[in-house]
């Protein structure tokens, strides 16, 4: 009797357990369905919002563009009509982006319109928010608006905001117009808290080099930057094509620090002329492999994209000979850069490359084939290159040869 009770009670318990589990599964299922519906609705809604915003932006941009690029049309009235049709948000965004794209008198007119429609005041309110991301957004927006009112707020944010991201956004905004006082405040703020990431520092130097290269040059000369920072700043000046930085680059090539020598060589290759050619050639014999690689790359820039020839035939011959010796350098980078430079060195360079491509040194062979694959060759040499690339069976260089041939098979 006791056993039967025990069995029926266990059975009841099991039945109850199954019921509880089934209910739990149902509840979970219902919850999952509900969640999916919420996610789907949110997705559809935000997708629609994005589409509507994009359409409004494009509508406002199409409508306003003819008024933005000239001083002859009445811009305020057009902006008022656009605000009624496309909304303040879309019009404000179009004006800010256009202000960022244009300069001169037309840009000043856009700033006035942004002030008139209250967009600047709204962004200033955002910079006073307790939320960091709002202040970052406000600072970025003010940088796009330009004008004195925006600058005053940005200068304060760049020096005094407690959050690094906000100070950085403010600094970038201050550099959009090239205004002297704003640039100086941006530099002071930057030196006050040098950003951790090298990418952010590079970005600052690049912006500064493009709007106020003289200020960046002064900063380097002032010796306030460490050697590492000096390299980044010098590279930025080279990228911006700031010719006034050439003497500094030449001085850097004489540094005892190989990294600084390499930077100097790279920048001299971007800014220098035929007078700097011998300097680049000397760098091919440097003890540090990355200086030799920088030298070969700089010669390639000079001869190739910058179309600057060696000052005389003797220097040209020296260049070809030296670059040829670098084809069996211990460093892959030096070999590759030297081969590419030779491919730009005219007939003599091509002859040296073909000799290397058929030679016994497999490193030189690979570098020469890869460079010849990208060079401009006559049909006879093209056929010879295919022949060389196809010969020799499977070696370590097979992939390079195949790539070389494939590259030449694609019509230029």
């Amino acid at each position, binding site marked *: 009797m006791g056993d039967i009770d025990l069995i029926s009670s266990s059975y009841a318990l099991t039945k109850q357990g199954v019921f509880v589990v089934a209910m739990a599964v149902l509840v979970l299922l219902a919850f999952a369905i509900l969640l999916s519906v919420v996610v789907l609705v949110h997705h559809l809604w935000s997708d629609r919002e994005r589409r509507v915003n994009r359409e409004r932006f494009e509508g406002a941009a199409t409508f306003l*563009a003819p008024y933005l690029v000239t001083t002859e049309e009445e811009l305020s009235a057009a902006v008022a009509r656009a605000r009624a049709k496309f909304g303040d948000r879309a019009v404000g965004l179009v004006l800010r982006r256009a202000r960022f794209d244009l300069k001169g008198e037309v840009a000043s007119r856009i700033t006035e319109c942004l002030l008139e429609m209250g967009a600047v005041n709204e962004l200033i309110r955002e910079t006073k928010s307790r939320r960091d991301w709002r202040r970052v957004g406000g600072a970025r927006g003010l940088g796009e608006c330009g004008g004195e009112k925006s600058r005053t707020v940005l200068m304060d944010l760049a020096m005094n905001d407690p959050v690094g991201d906000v100070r950085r956004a403010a600094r970038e905004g201050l550099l959009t117009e090239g205004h002297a006082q704003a640039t100086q405040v941006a530099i002071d703020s930057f030196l006050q808290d040098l950003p951790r990431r090298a990418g952010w520092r590079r970005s600052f130097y*690049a912006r500064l*080099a493009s709007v106020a290269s003289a200020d960046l040059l002064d900063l380097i000369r002032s010796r306030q930057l460490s050697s590492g920072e000096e390299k980044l700043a010098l590279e930025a000046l080279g990228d911006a094509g700031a010719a006034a930085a050439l003497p500094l680059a030449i001085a850097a090539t004489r540094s005892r620090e190989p990294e600084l020598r390499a930077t100097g060589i790279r920048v001299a290759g971007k800014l220098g002329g035929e007078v700097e050619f011998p300097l680049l050639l000397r760098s091919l014999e440097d003890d540090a492999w990355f200086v030799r690689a920088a030298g070969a790359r700089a010669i390639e820039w000079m001869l190739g*994209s910058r*179309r600057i020839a060696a000052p005389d035939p003797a220097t040209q011959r020296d260049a070809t000979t030296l670059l040829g010796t670098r084809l069996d350098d211990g460093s892959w980078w030096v070999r590759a850069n030297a081969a590419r430079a030779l491919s730009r060195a005219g007939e003599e360079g091509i002859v040296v490359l073909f000799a290397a491509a058929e030679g016994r040194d497999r490193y030189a062979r690979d570098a020469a084939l890869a460079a010849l694959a990208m060079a401009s060759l006559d049909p006879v040499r093209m056929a010879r290159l295919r022949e060389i690339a196809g010969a020799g069976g499977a070696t370590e260089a097979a992939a390079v040869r195949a790539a070389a041939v494939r590259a030449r098979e694609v019509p230029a």
Partner: protein
Amino acid sequence: MGENAGGTTTVIVAEDNFLTAHLIVATLEKAGYRAIAGRDGDEVSRLIGTHRPRVLIVNLNLSRPSGMELLRTLRKAYAELRAIAFLAPTQADLRAQAAGLGAESFFESPFDPSALVAEVERLAGE
């Protein structure tokens, strides 16, 4: 090449940024040119084949194909096409490469509309 029946010079603008393309087109239209924008390489190639413009304005940072690739292809196919390139201020190397491919003039953002018109006038007039 480049002039339609009304004597208007045609300029093709290769720019994938919607607003920038409209600003360039509006600038040129105000100056009396017929300007048409294309957002990618295929569209620009088709426009050039159809309209045979005298001047091309190309953003070197265009993607798929890159502005450089587009410039290379189009200058090869249409040797008489005059090219103006738009690029970022920090792209001195790209500028030199584009010059090697035949770009004759360079503009950085932000640009002055009147300077752009003057440059198009110079290239279209030569």
